[in-house]
């Protein structure tokens, strides 16, 4: 551990009782894949809605030997990722990395890394809404009963109507999935591109919603199926011919940026996963 950590606070900020309570909820969540487990959700020095659920999971999990990666929009340098990493390192002194492959714990907002994750890694996702039924049933008491009875009819009707009216399953990111053929689960606002990465993965995925006070999980090798119709299958954002303007990747989630140049500027699509893009460019340079 580094010497400059704040001695006023416990290792990883939270007191040990809080960590234990969170780990207990995590165990329950792993035992019931996709099920929303309520937890007390402590106050943190970070604002609600800015990653407090993911942060509590990370703080409850990390040991001094962990190597942590924090990303927002796939980017380690995004200001919110920087800020969360700063809090975690200041209260733990643990090592951090931007290299996806080198991390043991990865906390993320809105993305799953492009590089396939391994069974010795944990991905912690920050969750804003938690309950996928919020689209059709905002009342928690009623939604809990619906989950209990696997009564997801309202959701199917919602999706059907969106196809009829808008030509697509209208939920863009945060796409609803059925986990382990039982629970309807919110995938957090990851793009649809990332949804298949949850299915039968090697990695443990943990989801934390701080403001909504819910924890849920997708354990390794769990079936995760997006809601879809036989004649209207789930489609990702992928467009044939898409290509990263920086590394040339054709199979990655791209976001569009404005790049200023001598002629006033242009729009460019590049990998949203910054480390993936950088690695590919380094590789290309090495082989060139």
């Amino acid at each position, binding site marked *: 551990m580094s010497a400059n950590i704040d001695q006023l606070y416990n290792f990883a900020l939270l007191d040990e009782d809080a960590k234990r309570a969170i780990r207990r909820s995590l165990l329950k969540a792993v035992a019931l894949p996709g099920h929303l487990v309520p937890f*007390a959700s402590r106050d943190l020095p970070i604002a*609600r809605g800015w990653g407090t659920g993911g942060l509590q999971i990370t703080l409850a999990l990390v040991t001094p030997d962990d190597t942590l990666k924090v990303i927002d929009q796939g980017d380690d340098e995004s200001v*919110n990722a920087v800020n969360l990493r700063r809090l975690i390192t200041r209260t733990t002194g643990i090592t951090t990395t931007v290299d996806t492959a080198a991390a043991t714990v990865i906390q993320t*907002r*809105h993305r799953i890394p492009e590089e396939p994750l391994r069974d010795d890694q944990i991905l912690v996702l920050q969750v804003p809404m938690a309950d996928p039924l919020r689209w059709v049933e905002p009342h*928690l008491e009623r939604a809990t009963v619906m989950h209990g009875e696997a009564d997801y009819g309202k959701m199917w009707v919602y999706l059907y109507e969106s196809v009829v009216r*808008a030509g697509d399953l209208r939920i*863009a990111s945060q796409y609803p999935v059925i986990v382990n053929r039982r629970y309807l689960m919110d995938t957090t606002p990851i793009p649809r591109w990332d949804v298949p990465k949850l299915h039968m993965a090697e990695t443990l995925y943990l989801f934390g919603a701080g403001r909504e006070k819910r924890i849920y999980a997708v354990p390794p090798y769990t079936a995760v199926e997006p809601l879809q119709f036989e004649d209207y299958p789930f489609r990702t954002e992928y467009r044939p011919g898409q290509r990263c303007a920086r590394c040339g990747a054709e199979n990655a*989630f791209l976001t569009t940026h*404005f790049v200023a140049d001598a002629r006033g500027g242009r729009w460019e699509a590049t990998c949203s996963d910054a480390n993936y893009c950088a690695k590919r460019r380094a590789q290309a340079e090495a082989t060139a």
Partner: protein
Amino acid sequence: MGYVAVRGGAEAVARAEELVECLRLMGGSTPLHLPQIRDQLRHAVSRAMHEGALYAPLLAALAVKQAEGDSIEAAFLLRAYRTTLPRVMASLPVSGREMMCLRRISASFKDIPGGQMLGPATDYLIRLLQPALANEDMSVVVRAAERYEALVAIGGQRPGEVGRFPKVADYMRQERIIVDVPPDLAREAPFDITREPLTFPCPRSARLQAMAQADTGSLMSLAYSSVRGYGDAHPTLVELRYGYLPIQVAHPLTGEPITIGEIEATEAEVASKAHSVVNSAEPPRFNVGYGFAFGQSELKVMSMAILDSVLTQARIGSLSGESGPAADEEFVLLHSDGIEASGFVAHFKLPHYVTFEADLRVLDRARDHHAERASRLGQLVDQALEEQR
């Protein structure tokens, strides 16, 4: 430097922090001292304490200073500090009967046992700006002390008399005018929403705790909606009291109660004209709601008491007429916490370019679909949808 994909985020965050610090002091005026804030910005300190859910006047003054007077930010700072403190032990339950009152009023009866005591109230002040306050020096402090002494002399307190008063609610209970909320049978210890997840339906102790640390403005707005027409509140103020409450804990070895200090607090009971029937054998009585907050926080405790009364009635099914959003416990408790609400509203400042990109793709498809619907088949679908409406 663009906001999108800010590179060198660490430096940007550090510079932003510095700028905030600079802006606070760049006006060149004398830095505020914490006792000044504690004594002269009493209500800002009270609000930081009850919304921050931590009784610590000097720390609250620090929070108000650091937050540059922003009430939600000050409460946020206190909560973020409170969460790191261990729970050593719970204090013993304290009743408002024990309060050393500086003020106690009732709107239900003209005369009440012990008498009405207006105390330090702003209710009847004429709201004119007082130019004299703009340029005060230490002489006003001396004069205030003298005037206070004179006021105490006029009040004519008899030796040995303490500021304790019987409660109006006790009298109303005795007269069977009001009925107490049925206790949560399943729970002996009060619920703690900072240690247990708040799920619904929730016990009343969870409701009261959530409201005690809720944003004053949010509670006021919801309570107002219920009394104005989107509800069935019809409140009457049974009693409002403000003063000092002794805090006791049980001695860890002997179990004897020991006073460890006192807190400044406000509490209110509100009776609702809507009749409450416990069981059909009992005659109807008024339902009662309770509000409590640190400091002199009258608007907060009245809003809280009104909502508590409405929510109890909604739970036991004795509301008549329009119930409105203030009668929905989930709606009230999940949308009135200032820290949670402000955090989430503000989080839309965070980059959303991944989700927005995904939204754009769906927009593309909706546009293609729209174009297709211009076809004959599309017109038929439109027609069918139109007829459905």
